[in-house]
């Protein structure tokens, strides 16, 4: 295994090296870096041109210039020991410094979105595979194709208009007219009717129930002016937490043996108690406190599972931890929404942002700042998720269908294993093996996806740096961007190979 990894690292390194060479030549050829100066009428034109030629070593032919660049870049391999030098941009700023500023923004943008797209896409893919040829399957398949075919910038413009500008306008006087509530209720009814398929009676009841619940809830929320100061409230949190407990139990163990459920419920219960017990701590915590609380949650979950799990200790521990974290996330969300009112006042009612990663010069409590980030992240995240989600859904669906056809799935059923075990244990893990490759590609590609997203939403991340520099024929930042994107691509491909070996014991030995 170690030999396998070492070999993989060495090969990857040389591939990356060759890729930077190709990229360097292409970039050097992309335009005339002296173009703007040659057209300028500045009196010191000649001197400026001379300075730039020296700055970019333009007197050296491109293939040789690459090695000058490489010499500086080699310093980045050994942190602290050597100086990492990726050259300067046209303005003479160090590229490493530019990347240092841009990288965190990009990571913020893409990590959450990619993880979300992955989780949603894989879940939906599995469900549609299990319910092949249902109306849900057809709807999801059509949506996936539609999302595939959407240009992300087009979606982004729509999101900005409807998700931010008009939504903020509406927030100024948030009331849902009864007609709109009815229409949204019908849409929700249709949605649930498709999700919960069945015979005609069941469809109609589902539609009616969803319609009444959604339209009623909207009307109620509108009447109580909920939208002016949204929040979950402890009752909603408690009910949802219990729901999470049941869901995780259903996934990891089923209900034949009750101890797992008890552990999960206990975990949810402790979470609710903490809502009150930790109220003062959570008024304005630091990020570290939140991380600490999450760790405590995991520990408590493990303890509960161990103590209450009985014969299914392992499953109980999983269920308790997952439920605890889910409940924690609910409490977090509730607190975040709690800051809505004051935050909205501070930003003049324009809650959902269209541009940038933060409100400039914004200062507030932990929750207000968190909300500020969230409101800036939400639209670009939706845009990215929409596109990646479709890919994950399609791949997971076909991979899952392939696996469900396998003999060992039939064997698992013939043992009398419950359908839950057949899907979660036997089919899922095998279906995930090809998906790891997709994940690697997607993670690596997401950085280049950021080029468009950042440009539309005005984030000053890596993608923006790349596009702006390329437009200005500024080679070093372009190469800096590629170094990061290429390294990510190579790294994630390598990780995929290792994950592959981890998931599939057949690879592990060879």
């Amino acid at each position: 295994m170690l030999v396998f990894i070492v070999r993989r690292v060495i090969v990857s390194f040389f591939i990356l090296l060759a890729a930077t060479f190709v990229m360097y030549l292409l970039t050097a050829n992309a335009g005339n870096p002296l173009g703007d100066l040659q057209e300028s009428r500045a009196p010191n034109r000649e001197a400026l041109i001379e300075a730039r030629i020296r700055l970019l070593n333009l007197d050296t032919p491109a293939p040789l210039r690459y090695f000058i660049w490489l010499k500086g870049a080699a310093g980045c391999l050994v942190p602290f020991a050597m100086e990492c030098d990726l050259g300067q941009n046209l303005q003479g700023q160090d590229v490493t410094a530019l990347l240092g500023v841009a990288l965190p923004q990009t990571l913020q943008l893409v990590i959450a979105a990619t993880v979300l797209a992955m989780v949603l896409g894989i879940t939906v893919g599995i469900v549609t595979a299990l319910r092949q040829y249902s109306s849900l399957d057809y709807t999801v398949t059509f949506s996936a194709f539609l999302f595939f075919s959407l240009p992300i910038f087009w979606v982004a413009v729509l999101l900005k208009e409807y998700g931010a500008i008009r939504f903020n306008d509406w927030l100024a006087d948030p009331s849902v007219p009864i007609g709109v509530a009815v229409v949204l209720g019908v849409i929700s009814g249709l949605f649930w009717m498709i999700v919960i398929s069945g015979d005609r009676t069941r469809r109609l009841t589902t539609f009616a129930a969803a319609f009444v619940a959604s339209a009623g809830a909207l009307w109620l929320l509108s009447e109580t002016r909920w939208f002016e100061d949204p929040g979950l409230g402890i009752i909603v949190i408690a009910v949802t937490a219990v729901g999470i407990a049941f869901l995780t139990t259903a996934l990891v163990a089923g209900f034949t043996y009750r101890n797992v459920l008890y552990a999960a419920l206990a975990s949810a219960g402790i979470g609710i108690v903490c809502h009150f017990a930790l109220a003062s701590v959570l008024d304005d915590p630091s990020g570290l406190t939140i991380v600490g609380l999450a760790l405590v949650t995991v520990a408590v979950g493990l303890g509960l599972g161990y103590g209450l799990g009985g014969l299914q200790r392992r499953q109980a521990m999983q269920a308790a931890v997952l439920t605890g974290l889910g409940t924690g996330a609910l409490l977090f969300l509730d607190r975040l929404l709690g800051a809505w009112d004051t935050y909205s006042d501070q930003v003049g009612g324009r809650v959902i942002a269209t541009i940038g990663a933060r409100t400039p010069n914004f200062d507030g409590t932990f929750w207000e700042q968190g909300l500020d980030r969230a409101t800036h992240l939400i639209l670009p995240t939706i845009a990215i998720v929409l596109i990646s989600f479709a890919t994950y859904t399609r791949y997971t669906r076909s991979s899952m269908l392939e696996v469900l056809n396998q003999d060992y799935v039939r064997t698992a059923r013939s043992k009398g294993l419950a359908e839950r075990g057949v899907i979660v244990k036997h089919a899922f893990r095998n279906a995930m093996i090809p998906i790891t490759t997709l994940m690697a590609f997607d993670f690596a590609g997401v950085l280049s996806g950021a080029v468009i997203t950042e440009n539309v939403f005005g984030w000053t991340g890596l993608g923006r740096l790349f596009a702006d520099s390329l437009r200005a024929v500024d080679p070093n930042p372009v190469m800096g961007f590629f170094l990061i994107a290429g390294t990510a691509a190579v790294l994630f491909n390598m990780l995929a190979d290792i994950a592959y070996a981890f998931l599939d014991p057949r690879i592990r030995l060879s």
Partner: protein
Amino acid sequence: MSNPSTPDPGPAPGAAVAADAQGMTVVARTQAQMVRRRFFRHRAAMGGLVVLALIVLLAFSSIGFASVPGWWDKDYWSIATVENGGRPTLSVLPTWLGGSGMHLGEHPFGQDNVGKDYFALTMRGVQQSLTIAFVVGLVGTFIGTLVGATAGYFRGRTEAVLMRFTDVMITIPLLVIAAVLGRRYGSSGIVVLGLVIGLVTWTGLARLVRGEFLSLREKEFVEAARAAGTSARRIIVKHMLPNIVGVIIVAATLAIATAILLEAALSFLGFGVQDPDTSLGKLISNYQTAFSTRPWLFWFPGVFIIAIALSVNFIGDGLRDAFDPRQNRVRD
């Protein structure tokens, strides 16, 4: 819909015997017939085919192509006075439904801010998108097949060199390399842009074809051809490629869909088609800020991009189902 799990119902008695007796040609023909039949039964794919055909017809007949004039009396470069705020005059709602009747009007898709006819502009954009997609698909498929087939057939050092090169190219994200190339060649016209993008979009197909070739070259009929002294070129072209034509066609279709979106993205970023020419992505980019005031400038090119990409994707899906019906069917 679903395939039953009857243990090998087997082909119809007559077909099997006939195929055995007359050799490969009979099988190939029946397979092609089955593929065609499955494809024509795929409703979404047929829908996609019809929509795509209509769009192609509309785009190339309306404003003409190259020096051939079309039936639409306006062009996409002439500046005119903006009438009625540049609003679209297209109307599809008949009078008896409360609309103003079905007619195209003077400027069916409206006018842009200098009064150019937006219908003509959009049609030009569609032409550009289709052209680039076609060129990219053709070039990418050709190179990908060539590299993959050569690597998979000859193995050894040839394979090592070609596949390492593929690995290198695959490391560079498509949008990044396309943007860099677009920056250089965007102003040289759509066909050149398509050619250079095609030069970098073959990597996935090369891997796919190589994989197929690796398993094919072990098959008896290839061994037999080799034993008979057939040349490598002939074995590859006559014996092996026909067996994976399905894989290639499906990949090519999807590459075309990707290319359409890629061109749009490049033009949106400013690295694609350059002034005075236009493309769908460029139109959206130009008028994204006008969305609140003149939304039609944003909607028309967007709808055409989606319609084209969606049609091509559906056609690709239909082809995949037709060539490999196993993929989407559950046996038990």
